[in-house]
């Protein structure tokens, strides 16, 4: 997303004019940063919590 935003910025600069298509790439990348990327910290915590509690309930307990 970052690479697309940077590419869009570059193209906007080169064209030296507005293009809603390109601006939208940047806006969407900013949304991704605010609303999607932060999921990473939750997921990382879950991964590094390990497998103990995942496997702890015995088969008969289900």
């Amino acid at each position, binding site marked *: *997303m*970052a*690479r*697309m*935003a*940077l*590419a869009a*910025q*570059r193209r906007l600069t080169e064209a030296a004019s507005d293009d809603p*298509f390109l601006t939208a*790439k*940047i806006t*969407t*990348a*900013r*949304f*991704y*940063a*605010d*609303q*999607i*990327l*932060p999921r*990473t*910290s939750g997921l*990382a915590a879950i*991964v*590094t919590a390990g497998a103990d509690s995942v496997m702890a309930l015995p088969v008969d307990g289900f």
Partner: protein
Amino acid sequence: MPTFTPPVRDMAFVIEEIGALDRISTLPGYEEATPDLVSAVLEEAGRFGAGVLAPLNPVGDREGCVLEGDKVRLPTGFADAYRRFVEVGWNAVPFDPDFGGQGLPWLVATAVQEIWHAANMSFGLIPMLTQGAVELLSAHGTADQKALYLEQLVSGAWTGTMNLTEPGAGSDVGALRTRAVRDGDHYRITGQKIFITAGEHDAAENIIHLVLARLPDAPAGAKGISLFVVPKFLVNPDGSLGKRNDVSCIKLEHKMGIHGSPTCVMAFGEDEGAIGTLVGRENQGLALMFTMMNNARLAVGLQGVAIAERAAQKAIAYARERVQGIGPGRDAPGPIIHHPDVRRTLMTQRALVEAGRALTYFTASRLDIARHAADKAERAAAHALADLLIPVVKSWGTANGVQVADMAVQVFGGMGFVEETGVAQHLRDARIAPIYEGTNGIQALDLIGRKLIRDQGEAMGGLLAEIRRTEADLAESGGEGLERLRLELAAASTLCAETVAWV
């Protein structure tokens, strides 16, 4: 009315900026892949997808496929559409010109295929399965097998299937029991395969089945599997069709979605045994299957992106029209797109589609480099990166497909749950993708157990280095607008590195 607007400009943008088309078009054989050609191809594909395939999508969903005796009838219009598809040359796009292919890079072929899957996911499965057969025979077929089958599979005049799964052998494919016995200069195949996409249909004159089976003296499990070519009609040396082989569809599954795709139970050898020829060496079958698995898994991840794009388009169209309530800062009832919750949903769809598309096309471009770059080290690095990313493309792309289609239903409100609006079909269709071609759980095992651990995280290290470079670029040219993105990216990549180290 359901309409589909192929996002050609978005695709071309990703191809050029993320797929590095300028690098790909320097690879031998790909010199014609200029931005102009790519745009022209995408426009043309878009016209076919929107004009021919998309209108058939609800038809396929409503009618489904019909088994009459041992013949399968595709939904109205599908067989005709497929013949047109083949006539125009769409099946041949990524394949070797030596066998009639158009020789375009996977980077471009992937975008073209995104259009098929978005327009009509059931239809898109036919060429997708044929692609696997082409790849296997191109890489591992004998001269005879190539002479008999390859050109017709490349053009799409004949279609291909992958026969792995059995009732007792799904994720655990090594447990399969279909038998093969030697019989003179060929083999006789006996057994039953399930979940065979396009195992039988009325769109082509022959179907070439790739079948995994076990020889009598083979070791147990995954190491004792061989791969065979079992044509529906035997093919004479002059290319004409011969005897009907002992293979038939005995049942069609009644599924949750992709109703336009015939999901078959295939019976091999109910009579004297289906005639097959060996691909590669005996007991090499699974290893051979793995050579085409990268592209197959990429294709399924792509399906996730495609179905998400299609569902998101419907959601946007609805949100623009549907008037309910007064949005913040407004003074009269207006379209629901003005409500922040709906807006957030649409933006989430958009962000997931764009990111998924970028990751998928990027990975496709690495496959092009892995196969055609002159420099051995460059090929190896691209291959390792593609290997690492493919389980992510498959599982993230398909999970997003379901999530985005689900969001689209939500945007429609009650009417989303009513089949008539067509959005529910996308969720039902999307649901298979996290399951087939290796469940997302299997992809996770592949990512950690095979891709991360085997090279001690080297390919992952390379990827993280690339991400750091992007962070540096953001710092240099991103400006204030992208500062937050830079910070989040840096935080995420650091977490990723730490998590990988923990693993």
